[in-house]
């Protein structure tokens, strides 16, 4: 089939594979490739085993032929000793045919042995390659995973920096607002002080109250001054009265001493 249907199908599949390639995880591809290599190695090993089995079979055949050959040789010798030259000739001619077979088998055996050695060597080399690939694969996978993580971290970082930017903006906005409020508070203080604004807290006083307070505050000071002057004018009388009071207390004191007997024993 080579018509339109087939060609369109092929193009579709090729495109789909291409699309798949892009989406494919390289780690999976590596694992798949490693799996394939292991399968290949398995095949080679099976090949080595097959060749070895054939070699063994040849060896068995060779042994049998050689046994037969020596048997025929013995029979020939025996026939000669019995004076049966015809029999001896027959035995030797059969032995010669067997020898030809043995030579052929030996050649085959050598060839197989050579093949087996080559295959064993190939299997060993392949094994080494597969091992090396496995190590490399793991390294690549680790690198890929790390790169992926790095990308994710990078993405997270850029996300964070965006958020940090947002936080910075918020702080800036808050600072602006604070400065604005401070400026506003300063202006309000000035306006309140000048009386242009009423203080809603009632803490500020208008200028008339302030003057009245100042005046009343002043009279209090005058009164206080006069009281102090009066005290200073009569200090002696006050002092005597205080001291007299103290002397009286001193005379009465022994009677009032605590812990002293109040009455004599007389």
């Amino acid at each position, binding site marked *: *089939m*080579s*018509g*339109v*249907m*087939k*060609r*369109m*199908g092929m*193009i*579709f*599949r*090729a*495109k*789909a594979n*291409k*699309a798949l390639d892009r989406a494919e995880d390289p780690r999976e591809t590596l694992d798949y490739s490693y799996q394939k290599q292991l399968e290949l190695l398995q095949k080679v090993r099976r090949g080595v085993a097959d060749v070895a089995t054939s070699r063994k079979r040849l060896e068995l055949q060779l042994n049998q032929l050689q046994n037969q050959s020596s048997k025929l040789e013995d029979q020939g010798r025996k026939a000669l000793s019995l004076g049966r030259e015809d029999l001896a000739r027959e035995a030797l001619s059969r032995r010669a045919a067997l020898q030809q077979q043995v030579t052929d088998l030996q050649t085959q055996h050598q060839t197989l042995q050579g093949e087996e050695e080559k295959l064993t060597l190939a299997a060993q080399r392949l094994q080494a390659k597969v091992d090396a690939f496995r190590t490399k694969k793991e390294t690549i996978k680790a690198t890929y995973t790390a790169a992926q993580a790095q990308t994710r971290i990078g993405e997270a970082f850029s996300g964070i920096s965006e958020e940090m930017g947002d936080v910075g903006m918020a702080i800036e906005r808050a600072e602006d607002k604070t400065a604005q409020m401070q400026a506003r508070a300063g202006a309000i203080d000035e306006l309140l002080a000048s009386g242009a604004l009423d203080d809603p807290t009632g803490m500020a006083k208008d200028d008339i109250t302030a003057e009245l307070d100042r005046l009343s505050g002043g009279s209090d000071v005058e009164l206080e001054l006069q009281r102090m002057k009066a005290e200073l004018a009569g200090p002696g009388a006050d002092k005597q009265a205080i001291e007299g009071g103290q002397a009286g207390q001193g005379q009465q004191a022994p009677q009032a001493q605590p812990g002293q007997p109040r009455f004599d024993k007389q």
Partner: protein
Amino acid sequence: MIVRIMGEGQVKLDDAHFVELNKLDDELLDEMESGDEPGFRRTLSALLDAVRRLGSPLPDDSLEPSELILPAEDATLDEVRQMLSDDGLIPG
């Protein structure tokens, strides 16, 4: 075998029908290559009819890959030729 008719959906066809369909398909290719627009229209229509008649439609939500793909009924010769050019059906 599963055949997709572009713009319509997928159809499951018994392999036994391919001898008949192949004849039409090859004819369609010849007409496309020679630029025989009326012939192309006629054969495409006949091929699509045969696929619909011989096959059983697959549900729209099935995810079977199509082994063969056919242009839509109203596809022009130029469009099909373009689809089969190096760029293929999907760019990129």
